[in-house]
């Protein structure tokens, strides 16, 4: 089958920041799970201990004996390196994210590929995009070069809502940051509320990752991976 090689689908900056973000997100996910395991109870407000009522408790064993979990054993404690790794990966992803957003503004990537086009904002465009997704329809050639309306809104939501929120709620758990920006903690409802929101946003980000990978498989895994690694895309339909 003839494969039409064409101009770059993803710029070098998008590709590099994409894969650094991927590595950081996986590091944050693994270390975040390890940190949660040390106290899998969640609270609302400023405070919460095993003596106070929990909002909910994950039905998993814990890595510290101080938490009653109903399990007869305690998991190995991995909190030390998990915390070191969590904050290091957080720095790396924040710096990468800034680089991505600033360069996207200047290169036109944001305006061209992420902000919905005028025609995308009609109900018709939306309902057809949603219908195509629900039918698991493979994207057509026109999507080989840019994103569809649902994709644009999802990416904008992840980049400008979920990521800032997860950074904010993460910082709000820091006693030192709370001393400088107390209202950043109180508007969230308190330090424990910040922790609970941080957990839920991480769950949403993880769900986004799963759907993202599913969509890539649907659209042609090899082609989309090649586009994100080499930058080049094949426009013709490809059997993955």
């Amino acid at each position, binding site marked *: 089958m003839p494969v039409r090689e064409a101009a770059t689908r993803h710029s070098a900056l998008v590709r590099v920041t994409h894969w650094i973000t991927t590595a950081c997100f996986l590091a944050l996910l693994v270390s975040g799970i390890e940190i949660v395991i040390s*106290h899998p*109870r969640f609270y609302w407000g400023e405070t919460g*201990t095993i003596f106070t009522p929990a909002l909910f408790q994950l039905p998993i064993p814990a890595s510290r004996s101080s938490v009653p979990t109903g399990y007869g054993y305690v998991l190995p404690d991995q909190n030390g390196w998990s915390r070191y790794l969590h904050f290091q990966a957080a720095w790396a992803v924040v710096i990468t994210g800034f680089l991505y957003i600033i360069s996207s503004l200047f290169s036109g990537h944001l305006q061209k590929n992420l902000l919905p086009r005028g025609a995308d904002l009609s109900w018709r465009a939306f309902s057809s995009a949603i219908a195509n997704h629900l039918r698991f329809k493979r994207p057509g050639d026109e999507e080989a070069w840019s994103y569809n309306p649902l994709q644009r809104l999802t990416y904008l939501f992840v980049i400008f809502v979920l990521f800032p929120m997860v950074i904010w709620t993460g910082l709000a758990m820091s*006693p030192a940051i709370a*001393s400088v920006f107390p209202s950043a903690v109180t508007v969230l409802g308190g330090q424990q509320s910040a922790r609970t929101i941080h957990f839920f946003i991480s769950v949403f980000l993880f769900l986004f990752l799963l759907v993202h990978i599913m969509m890539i498989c649907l659209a042609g895994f090899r082609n989309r991976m090649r586009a994100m690694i080499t930058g080049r895309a094949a426009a013709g339909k490809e059997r993955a």
Partner: protein
Amino acid sequence: MSDLSRRRLITTGLAAAAGASGLAVANKLAQRYGLIPPDHGGLYGAGETLTYAAQRILTKHSWAREFPRSAITKPPFADGEPPKQEAFRRLQAGGFADWRLHVDGLVARPASFSVADLKNHPSRSQITHLACEEGWSYIAEWTGVPLSHVLDVVGIMPQARYVVYFSIDPEWWDSLDMADALHPQTLVTYGMNGAELPVGHGGPLRLRVPRQLGYKNVKYITRLTVTDDLKQFGEGLGSVSPEGGYAWYAGI
């Protein structure tokens, strides 16, 4: 070589040179202003240094949040077991009357204080949040002598950079830079929620550092040492925390 790739090579080279010299300058400035934590080496040193430097600059004059009495958590949660040392049990049996806090190192007048001595000094009470690195937290009122006052009494020397503090439990010691050591909310605590500091919470004496996580708030303290160099303590990483895999700086 085409013009474009030559231009690219030159720009990349210039950017790399600017980046490298920028890092060198940043390192010099960071050394000078004390923005490098003792556990700056190793795999996670870069992240740790960024966190410490950023927060040290931001929190220079900030105060930990203080809460109204109605916010106090009931009952407060005490983590861990009291020390198993025979010495601790003996002191506890005597109502901690013989407990001593020794202050030495780079000070003009090394001294040792009993709990009663400390109570004769100006006290401060504050209702603050204590968060454990595990994820739980509570609010309580702590009463004690500001560490800055104790350091004033013994007279710290100008080259002082850190205050190292030791628990009666030999497995637990830590250190603070002078910004946290001299902070008005850093207390040598002997009271909690209007009563004596319970043994479960570190009684008779606990160092309370409300801008950092629970594990920096060492319980059962018996000695403070003022120093200009953390290398001579333990593995030289500033506290037992990095030796056990945890960050020295816990403002997070």
